[in-house]
């Protein structure tokens, strides 16, 4: 199944390149192992044949690279996008960070990406991986074949997939799919139901592991500031080290706040965190609050929508009521 999809995508990319529709293709490059795909630019059919790959590990969201790509005076770029990536793409269009005219979006269906961390926890010494709808068979170095249920190694964001529908498209390779029912706010609700002490303990434990590598920020398609406030010496908060637990809390609260109403819940932050911090739970809290306070809002669902924080109504809830609202629900 994987092979066929890869070949279809390569054929499509080649067609666009040779037809002169685009000058380059943004996709995923094969790595050393079956699972380490790196985003990359392909400029020729030859490169595509040799290096292009797609499959259960094509996790990186390519939309952020389009900011730089569309600034180049080099014609159009074709880009492959999974359904959730198209939300980020739309959000970037809404914020005028991408020139739509310079992009050719090729939608690729997605059945969920495998989480490398979960996979290497499930099997040591991965030599090769075969995936079907039910199972993942890992050929290991020392233990022969190890079979695990696919669901057990799917990325969290894919287990709670919000949409399999592409919201931005020039062309779709494969089948069309729908917005999915999901329970992505369950974990947030579980935390909300805890006592403040428990919540504090939980987050203290999670956030104190932060090493301030900035991967969450740098990968985030919503974090597109030319200069981040945390990199600005004049901001007074430019600090590189987690020398006290306050620093990480401030960083993550502010970062989540800065992307509020713009975060599409693509889950890249949690995917890249080397310390396994569930950063998506901060973003989802904001999304859940927005939905409950001012009505359902999905960033990136449509281009040009007005984000909830740059909007208001006369009868919005007071902050004190907003905070206490949880208690009434409980």
């Amino acid at each position, binding site marked *: 199944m994987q092979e066929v999809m890869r070949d279809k995508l390569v054929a499509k990319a080649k067609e666009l390149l040779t037809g002169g529709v685009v000058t380059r293709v943004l996709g995923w490059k094969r790595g050393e192992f079956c699972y380490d795909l*790196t985003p*990359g630019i392909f400029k020729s059919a030859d490169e595509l044949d040799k290096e292009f790959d797609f499959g259960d590990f094509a996790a*990186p969201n390519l939309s952020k690279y389009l900011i730089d790509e569309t600034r180049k005076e080099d014609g159009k770029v074709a880009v492959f996008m999974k359904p959730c990536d198209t939300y980020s793409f739309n959000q970037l269009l809404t914020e005028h960070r991408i020139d739509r005219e310079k992009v050719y979006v090729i939608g690729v269906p997605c059945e969920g990406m495998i989480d490398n961390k979960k996979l290497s926890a499930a099997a*040591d010494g991965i030599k090769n991986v075969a995936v079907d709808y039910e199972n993942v068979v890992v050929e290991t170095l020392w233990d022969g074949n190890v079979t695990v249920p696919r669901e057990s190694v799917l990325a969290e964001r894919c287990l709670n997939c919000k949409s399999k529908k592409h919201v931005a498209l020039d062309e779709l390779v494969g089948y069309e799919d729908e917005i999915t029912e999901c329970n992505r706010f369950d974990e947030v609700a579980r935390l909300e139901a805890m006592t403040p002490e428990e919540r504090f303990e939980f987050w203290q434990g999670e956030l104190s*592991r932060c090493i301030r590598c*900035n991967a969450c920020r740098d990968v985030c398609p919503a974090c597109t500031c030319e200069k981040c406030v945390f990199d600005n010496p004049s901001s007074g908060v430019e600090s590189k080290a987690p020398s006290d637990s306050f620093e990480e809390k401030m960083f993550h609260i502010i970062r989540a706040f800065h992307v509020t109403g713009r975060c599409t819940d693509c889950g890249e932050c949690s995917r890249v965190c080397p310390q396994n911090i569930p950063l998506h739970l901060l973003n989802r809290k904001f999304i859940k609050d927005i939905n409950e306070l001012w009505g359902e809002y999905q960033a990136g669902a449509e281009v040009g929508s007005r984000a909830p924080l740059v909007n208001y109504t006369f009868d919005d809830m007071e902050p004190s009521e907003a905070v206490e609202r949880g208690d009434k629900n409980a």
Partner: protein
Amino acid sequence: MRKISLDKLDLLFAKIAENQSLYIPSDSVEGAKFTKWTNGTALTNELNTVRGIKDFFFPQSEDLMKFKMQGKNIEVIDIRDEHEDFVIFGARACDVRAMTVLDNVFLHAEPVDTYYKNRREHGIIMSLACTRPVETCFCGTFGIDAANPEGDIVCHKTDDALYMNAVSEKGTALLDSLSDITEDADTKAVDEQKALIKERMTKLPLAELTTDAFGGGKTEKFFDSPEWAKLSESCLGCGTCTFVCPTCQCYDIRDFKTNDGVVRYRCWDSCMYSQFTRMAHGNNRNSQKERFRQRFMHKLVYYPENNNGMFSCVGCGRCLAKCPIRMNIVKVMKALEGTDNGSN
């Protein structure tokens, strides 16, 4: 060589922890992590920890000194004190070699870094041979023998016992102090294990990777390689690779204004960060390509040039596992190697 049966491992840990802090790799939410041993802390089954043992000797953030200011006056307060004694159990061969790499910078190159020296002098490393290397391991590339790690006490864990061999003065003293709970052992079981490890190392997917193309004096050869642009095009410029790397040692010195003075501290920095070399009048590494190149040239060319050919990569595979976009030193080496052959 001494041994202790595995069911008495806790006894061994308790005995060591009597006189000093003991850190062992243990499972946590973030993955395996060196954790201070208290009764009940269990040794992990993971091959290696998310972060190496660098943190113990060169912590991510450490206070250097304090300043008290009054009007125009400044008082410099030296806040250094003797570090506590500690033992790290279970460091892998790659991580122990990483300490040699850091020693070259902080101890052997003048002037000596006294902060590092202080911690180094008070730390004892009990290394542990790897029996189940994973696909991202390539320590052999850098001449590291996973079967024979360096360290103060070299340990081998078999199915039923832990074998310990002291190879330094500090190690001998520690092992001697454990003599009443350990017993003498011959090297048979360890030799068998070493043979198994050696055989396994040859079966690793990266076993063929060599450093032949790299080393001191290769700056001109690689600096202007067109590969850098391609390799770095997707680099996010985050510091993950740097911070999980057991040998990366770049640091920043910064001031923090406390409520009654200033603490000057140093913290890890990353050459991948855009502001790393930014000066008031510009930046000599303005693009991610240049910063990316700096990191790998340092590991593969500059460091060996200044340190008798030793590379500042130990093949631990952490950057392979942690890079958000899965770019890593192996991909860089292979790409550059290609150009090397091409130019011959």
